[in-house]
């Protein structure tokens, strides 16, 4: 757990250092000038362009695929169908190896590849893809949670297939995994309750919408392997999965991951890469697939959810019990969605002191595009319900919703999940609430038609993992750090450069950061769960300390001193004769052969068997959000006049990056609260994949006033007391905005997004009810 990481020396900020300052983004100028090469910008003059063949329904048996016309078309070099793949169909996944490389006799979601066409130009590939004839019989697919959970529902995954769900007691249902977290006695607590709030909530399916669409280039190597270029968050997972599918060693599969142009969780798990690997090997040619935004939207999404909650309160505002039943609508294959469910529901009781709690959660397969990780993972869905319940309880009891939260929030070290696998607060979370209240002017009176809402959010970070780093201190005093974290915008490269600069006393401009290449860079488990600052940050810190240790020993030997007489601090050796800068000491130690000093750092955290999360969280992200709206009661339209987001970050390693991530997470959260949703028709077709129809926040949707803040108690397990912080601001945005709308409109809306139409309908229904 976090304590295991904390036990190490995490260092203190140097007053004259780079860590803790607004160091400009590493690679920022290249991004601003267009010089940065994203995957689609890489030049492969000989590559064939690829188009994917799909069918216009979400569930169908494939009766035949005729590629003869397509293969005869100009420029077409080859077509890949399921018949070209090994039998049984190779499948991949993280926890469940259930996803076929391409549709295996049956299409299980809209957009699932049936064939792939490679041609000299994209126009030729697109035309030939249209000429592939797919004969299919549509099946009664399940496109909603209700349909998937009906007693006679079509089963998304064939229960008779022994390779998939053998021995699984749930195999005759569409539930792929379920989890119950429970403690205390609900009935006993309910008997004491002055108020019980009961309601149902829904959270729609959404998409990550990275501005950089998905892109893959697969290039056969002379050694019979592959080089795969793809902007992924997890290059080493990609390498393992592709190598496993094509039967090669890790050394034969080289993954190059150019910095992603936004990931938000959507670029973690392989999507089209396995198919592209088989296509490249079949044709023995470099093949390239470049999607646009709408095609990317069809390929990656967040799980929607339906939630039913009952919550009991004492008259004074103590939360006595909380009972939640939540179903996550995942897609046709597991991807990481079962874990989205388990991690999201683990914190479903919120960061509160609850005498009794029961969270029953299920991950439900549907014939919809595969859901995957997205910023906040499974927490925003359940937080929407839990926090709305708390707001409702406070309102009905006539209590201040902020003070109800302060009353029930756990103190540092106190359990908010009880039982064998307890979860304990690891920060002064009330400070974030108090700070948010101050920034928002919580107690200031509001003009008419304005409303204010508050919510808190919590998410468990990574529970296990391995990150390794190498740091080379070169003879001229410059340094290179190798760190496998993908910098998808969160600013990881900048943090490594700042860390190395301070630990070795190298100017930050003389630190080079190498990542995104499995041949060059040591292993890192993944870039997710806001883990990198803590895990890779620790590995980088240890690699720097390893360099310092070696320099001290080399210097001592060279000058004939006892290493015990020499101490070191960031950037310098402290000798009996005085301080020697580290680069000077290194030169003296290296001597006439010159060369360099190579340091290695590892951060390893083992999981814990039986734990619902696979282990104790290394830290928690905690956030308090306050939203303020001005409502037009006649139309239901509203303007977000003020929005406040405060997170417990431990230590701000780069304050401007913290602000950017905090604002970005808040705005993304607001988009998910007030406009975003994927809409499918009765054939499972995604109706609004286009950027015209799937709305995300623009400049004009930013709150009139957007205020962010941090709680810094230097109590995180990461370098200099830091914690990860990129997901906090999205955890409870929906509930904060919903509470603000309720405060302004006098009605409660339980379905996201909070559209004007929904508010208008609820207002009108309330008015009609009052008249009747």
């Amino acid at each position: 757990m976090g304590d295991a990481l904390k036990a190490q020396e995490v260092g203190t900020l140097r007053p004259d250092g780079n860590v803790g300052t607004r160091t400009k983004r590493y690679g920022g100028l290249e991004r601003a000038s267009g010089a940065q090469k994203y995957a689609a910008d890489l030049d492969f003059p000989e590559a064939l362009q690829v188009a994917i063949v799909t069918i216009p329904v979400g569930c169908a048996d494939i009766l035949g695929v005729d590629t003869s016309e397509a293969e005869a078309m100009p420029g077409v070099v080859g077509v890949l169908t399921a018949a070209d793949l090994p039998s049984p169909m190779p499948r991949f996944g993280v926890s469940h190896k259930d996803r076929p490389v391409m549709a295996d006799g049956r299409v299980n979601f809209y957009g699932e590849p049936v064939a792939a066409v490679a041609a000299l130009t994209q126009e030729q590939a697109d035309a030939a893809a249209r000429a592939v004839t797919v004969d299919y019989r549509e099946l009664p697919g399940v496109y909603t949670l209700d349909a998937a959970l009906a007693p006679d529902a079509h089963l998304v995954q064939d229960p008779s297939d022994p390779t998939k769900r053998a021995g699984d007691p749930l195999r005759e249902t569409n539930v792929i995994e379920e989890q119950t977290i429970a403690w205390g006695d609900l009935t006993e607590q309910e008997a004491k309750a002055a108020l019980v709030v009961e309601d149902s909530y829904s959270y729609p399916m959404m998409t990550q919408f990275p501005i950089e669409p998905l892109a893959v280039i697969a290039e056969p190597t002379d050694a019979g392997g592959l080089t795969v270029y793809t902007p992924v968050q997890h290059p080493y997972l990609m390498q393992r999965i592709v190598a496993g599918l094509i039967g090669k060693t890790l050394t034969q599969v080289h993954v190059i991951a150019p910095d992603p142009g936004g990931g938000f969780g959507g670029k973690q798990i392989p999507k089209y890469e396995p198919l592209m690997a088989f296509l490249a090997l079949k044709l023995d040619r470099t093949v390239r697939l470049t999607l646009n935004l709408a095609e990317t939207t069809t390929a990656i999404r967040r799980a929607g959810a339906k939630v039913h909650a009952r919550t009991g309160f004492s008259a004074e505002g103590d939360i006595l019990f909380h009972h939640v039943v939540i179903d996550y609508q995942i897609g046709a294959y597991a991807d990481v969605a079962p874990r989205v469910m388990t991690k999201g529901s683990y914190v479903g009781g919120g960061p509160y002191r609850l005498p009794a709690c029961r969270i029953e959660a299920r991950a439900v397969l549907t014939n919809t595009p595969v859901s995957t990780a997205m910023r906040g993972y499974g927490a925003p869905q359940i937080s929407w319900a839990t926090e709305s319940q708390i707001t409702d309880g406070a309102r009905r009891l006539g209590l201040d919703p902020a003070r109800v939260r302060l009353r029930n929030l756990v103190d540092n070290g106190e359990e908010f999940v009880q039982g064998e696998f307890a979860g304990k607060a690891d920060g002064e979370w009330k400070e974030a609430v108090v700070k948010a209240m101050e920034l928002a002017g919580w107690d200031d009176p509001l003009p008419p038609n304005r409303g204010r809402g508050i919510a808190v959010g919590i998410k468990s970070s990574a529970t296990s993992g391995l990150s390794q780093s190498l740091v080379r201190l070169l003879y001229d005093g410059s340094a290179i750090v190798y760190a496998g974290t993908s910098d998808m915008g969160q600013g990881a490269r900048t943090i490594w450069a700042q860390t190395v600069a301070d630990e070795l006393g190298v100017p930050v401009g003389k630190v080079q950061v190498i990542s995104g290449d499995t041949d060059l860079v040591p292993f890192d488990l993944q870039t997710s769960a806001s883990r990198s600052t803590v895990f890779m940050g620790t590995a980088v810190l240890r690699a720097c300390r390893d360099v310092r240790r070696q320099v001290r020993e080399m210097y001592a030997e060279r000058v004939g001193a006892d290493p015990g007489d020499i101490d070191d601090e960031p950037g310098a050796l402290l000798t009996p004769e005085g301080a020697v800068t580290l680069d000077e000491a290194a030169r003296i130690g290296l001597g006439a052969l010159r060369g360099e000093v190579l340091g290695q750092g590892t951060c390893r955290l083992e999981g814990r068997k039986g734990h619902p999360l696979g282990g104790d969280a290394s830290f928690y992200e905690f956030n308090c959000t306050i939203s303020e709206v001005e409502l037009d009661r006649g139309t239901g339209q509203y303007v977000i006049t003020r929005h406040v987001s405060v997170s417990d970050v431990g230590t701000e390693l780069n304050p401007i990056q913290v602000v950017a991530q905090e604002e970005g997470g808040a705005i993304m959260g607001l988009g998910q609260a007030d406009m975003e949703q994927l809409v499918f028709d009765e054939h499972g077709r995604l109706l609004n994949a286009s950027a015209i129809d799937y709305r995300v926040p623009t400049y004009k949707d930013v709150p009139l006033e957007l205020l962010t803040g941090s709680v810094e108690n230097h109590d995180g397990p990461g370098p200099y007391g830091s914690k990860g912080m990129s997901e906090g601001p999205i955890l409870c945005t929906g509930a904060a905005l919903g509470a603000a709308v309720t405060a302004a409109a006098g009605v409660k809306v339980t379905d996201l997004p909070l559209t004007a139409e929904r508010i208008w309908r609820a207002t009108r229904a309330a008015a009609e009810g009052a008249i009747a």
Partner: protein
Amino acid sequence: MSVGTESLVTVTATINGEPRTFTVPGHRTLLDALRSELGLTGTKSSCTEGECGACTVMLDGHAVNSCLVLAAEVDGHEVLTVEGVSVDGGTDLQQAFLEHGAVQCGFCIPGQVMSAEYLLSRNPDPSVQEIRDAMSGNLCRCASYNRIVEAVRQTATKRVSTRG
């Protein structure tokens, strides 16, 4: 179906101040021609339907979505891309983006830079609201919007005071 046999168009245009001639199929967009024929990959391709602004360039001094312009249409005209406005070490605007934390994943930023330069060419001292209005066609999923507004405001203020 005319794939592979469609008529080719030869285009001569001033690209970033230099005369360039290239031959493309008649249906090819300016975006694709810039990236494929001219190797100017600073202009990014994302939605390909005029919604996201990642492909913004200037055509005869006007900001346009290059995915909505045919390459053939720029024959005889002037095109300015992010490569054309950039200088070694970055322009004042690009540096302001960095100072204010406006560059996160960075994919939309070349388009943002072009829209901001276009705005400043028309309105040297825009208000926050004017910046939000003028740049609302450029999506940023990292949502660096307030960071970019600050950068554009700072650049405008500095440029106005320099011009005195």
